[in-house]
């Protein structure tokens, strides 16, 4: 009962906020479609009314998928960020900073290469028909591989220090950038493949479909299942691994679950929207500023808060700049960089104790 009475107001608040943002997102656009048409078109998607005229219906559907995908991507990135910060016991860690989203993007790029015909005949034949699944699968595999690599290198002596973590992140991101440059150079002639890969590095939410939506929410749902198994454990890990073990925490198991869940959430987001930086860093930070320090609260709040953050940012920039607005991935990099600097300045004393 107390649990319900505590979570109910928050749930209602988040629900209203997300609904408001979703409506705003769907209504915004250049093609002069009115609110009534948007409503009818959305109802038609649910089978509640007759579809609109074909092109109008298509535009409404695109907008709805875009809004839903943005919600899912924001939630997935924020959850991934929360898990990674808990696992590395460091509030400056994030999926993009330590190279997880970079790895996932590289995976997506490989998948696009295969779909584009750049693979041995054997691979091409065996992957035919799997096209739609290739991007999410490769993203996840590469994200998991990158996270495991970072965790392995950075925690050589049991604890991942910030310095090591960031250096490993830089190294991984450099490798990814190198691989990307190579891939883009090789595909210069084939502008469609090249453009698709480039779009992934910017992070795009245009032209999303129901399948994208399904991908991100499926990944999100599975990784959220991990939360009850790691939240209390991550709280106890704040005192150090040995202290947590003495209290009864299965430290290795906790880190393994958190790692897989974080990689899954980040890769689900990347598979759908490409590289979108800083959501995973900023959202847990904002939640901490609101007084949510325990991972038992923070990880759950990260889901709606991350969704609201990314969709809110997307709506805001489209409202301010109109149709020619930046992609959310680009905008997040533009805004996120200074925010990260601000965090560093604010925690200068901590920095000096690294």
């Amino acid at each position: 009962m107390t649990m319900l009475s505590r979570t109910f107001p928050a749930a209602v608040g988040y629900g209203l906020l997300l609904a408001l943002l979703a409506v705003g997102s769907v209504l915004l656009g250049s093609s002069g479609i009115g609110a009534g048409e948007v409503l009818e078109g959305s109802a038609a998607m649910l089978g509640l009314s007759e579809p609109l005229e074909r092109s109008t219906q298509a535009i409404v559907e695109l907008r709805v998928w875009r809004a839903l995908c943005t919600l899912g991507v924001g939630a997935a990135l924020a959850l991934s960020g929360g898990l990674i910060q808990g696992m590395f016991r460091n509030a400056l860690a994030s999926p993009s900073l330590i190279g997880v989203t970079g790895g996932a993007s590289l995976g997506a790029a490989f998948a696009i290469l295969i779909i584009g015909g750049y693979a041995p005949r054997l691979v091409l034949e065996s992957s035919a028909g799997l096209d739609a699944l290739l991007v999410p699968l490769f993203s996840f595999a590469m994200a998991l591989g990158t996270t495991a690599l970072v965790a392995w290198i950075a925690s050589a002596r049991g604890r991942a220090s910030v310095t090591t973590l960031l250096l490993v992140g830089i190294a991984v991101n450099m490798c990814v950038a190198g691989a990307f440059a190579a891939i883009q150079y090789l595909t210069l002639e084939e502008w469609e493949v090249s453009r698709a890969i480039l779009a992934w590095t910017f992070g795009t939410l245009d032209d999303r479909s129901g399948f994208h939506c399904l991908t991100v929410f499926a990944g999100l749902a599975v990784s959220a299942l991990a939360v009850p198994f790691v939240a209390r454990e991550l709280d106890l890990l704040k005192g150090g691994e040995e202290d947590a073990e003495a209290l009864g925490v299965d430290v290795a198991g906790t880190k393994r679950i958190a790692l897989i869940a974080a990689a899954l959430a980040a890769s689900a987001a990347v598979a759908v929207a490409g590289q979108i930086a800083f959501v995973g860093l900023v959202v847990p930070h904002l939640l901490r500023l609101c007084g949510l320090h325990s991972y038992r609260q923070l990880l759950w709040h990260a889901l709606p808060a991350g969704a609201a953050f990314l969709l809110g940012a997307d709506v805001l920039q489209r409202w301010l700049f109109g149709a020619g607005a930046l992609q959310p991935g680009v905008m997040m990099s533009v805004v996120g960089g200074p925010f990260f600097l601000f965090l560093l300045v604010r925690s200068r004393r901590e920095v000096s104790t690294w």
Partner: protein
Amino acid sequence: MVNQLAARNVCFGYPDGPRVLHGVSLELARGELVSLVGPNGSGKSTLLRCMAGLAELDAGEVLLDGSPLRVGTPRERALNVAVVPQFLPSLFDVRVEDFVLGGRYARIDRWVGPGASDREAIEKALVACDVIECRGRAMSELSGGQRQRVVVARAVAQEAAVLLVDEPTTSLDPDHQVTIFELLARLACEGRIVLVVTHELNLAAQFSAAMAVLHEGRLVARGSVDALMRSEVLTPVYGERLHFGRMDDGRPFVVPRARLLRRPQG
């Protein structure tokens, strides 16, 4: 009910380092406060880690009532053995009550959450350690003495039969040092097995049922306070600069003795 924790011939070395413990055997019994003393670097904290089942031994074994401690999961171990660590990171954002709740981790069902028995145990532990008035405050707001008692309270709330305490009185004033040792002695009297690693020889002497002396990774003495607080035992371990004496009531004490520095004449 747990009656005994025993280290048998424990050998341990850190990877890429020299061996720290060379075949240490130490038995701890229910109802006894045993103090483990020895110079810096003698391996006290390492022995405590080994006896808590937190380290993979090179040789030997640690037995809880005859069965090997490291066989079980961390959760099973935590039901029987509680550790008070010497250092904890700042934990600035954690509330005292939530911190002490950490001691209940092994007993709380993941899907049910803390229940009445957990709240009761936390309350009792906070009262026993005299920090009940701090329950709603953040760890960062506490004084050194309060903080140390809160860390002990977490181990008390764990309700384990064995309590292993690593240097609980560092950075505490004399009054608080006595408070902590009184608390540990009381916990032992209530039927726990208590091992305290400490540099406070005199507090150890006043509160312990027995003392053990570790020197260069070997247990060189174990026995009653009267048998151990002697020059023959402690001088070979700590060096010459100790003064041995007796208090009014005849209990032994030992203080470091400085050489008198004479100002050069003329």
